[in-house]
């Protein structure tokens, strides 16, 4: 896997966690009641970690990431069965075989999100 894609995946996972804690009352309740997580502190910690990881992105990837992040809730999405799970448009078939190992950082030609191929 491309190291920059690996970084992007980590960032997207953190963003998902942050979004769930921020916007989903049931998830916030479980984390707070069962695991005694201090939600506000956790959100701050997630923001700190995201900033730290963003600084490690290559300039061109970082610029795309920032642009996509501003307008869309998910900057990195899986490709399942040849379909981008951000905009649900098929990605070019020619990408499929070479992209299977995720050795390149690719973006969807339609929505611009970073793509991660899932088996």
């Amino acid at each position, binding site marked *: *896997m491309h190291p920059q894609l*690996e970084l992007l*995946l*980590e960032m*997207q*996972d*953190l963003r*998902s*966690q942050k979004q*769930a804690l921020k916007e989903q009352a*049931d*998830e916030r309740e*479980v*984390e707070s009641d*069962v*695991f*005694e*997580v*201090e939600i506000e*502190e*956790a959100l701050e*910690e*997630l923001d700190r*970690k995201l900033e730290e990881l963003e600084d490690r992105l290559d300039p061109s990837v970082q610029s795309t990431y920032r642009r996509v992040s501003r307008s869309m809730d*998910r900057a*990195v999405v*899986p490709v*399942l069965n040849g379909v981008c*799970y951000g905009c649900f448009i098929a990605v070019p078939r020619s990408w499929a075989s070479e992209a299977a190992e*995720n050795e390149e950082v690719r973006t969807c030609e339609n929505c611009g999100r970073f793509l*991660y191929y*899932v*088996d």
Partner: protein
Amino acid sequence: MQLRDFFSQDCIKLDLEAEDKDEALKELVSLLDLDEKSEGILFKMLKRRENLGSTGIGRGIAIPHCRSLVVNRLRVAFGRKDGGIEFKAIDEQPVENLFLIVAPPLEVSNQYLPVLGKIAQFSKEPDVPERLAELEEPSEFMDLLEEKGV
């Protein structure tokens, strides 16, 4: 929805070799049979979740969990470490029983929280730690879930 429908015997390990928290998380992740890179990403995510607050809920039980793009469906695993490991649990006691839950960020069936809730509920039953300690085969773990009706 029944918890036992999500577990398979190859994702149950009753003799974890781990000696500390990190090793235990890695060993649990390895039960999911992902590729090496995905295992690494998942381990980091679980560590980051632990940094927000331990998932050791007391009575020797921990439920490490996170959402991650490296899985395309809800995955669970169970591991037992006789003697327990230090996990910074809520009651500050060592953890012997670990339930791992991982789900993709967008999960159509929306099973992540219900599964997490059911495991937490199961873990609170008075005799569960003792019953888990008595297990000799993974199949008995499945039987226990069935007996408890979860």
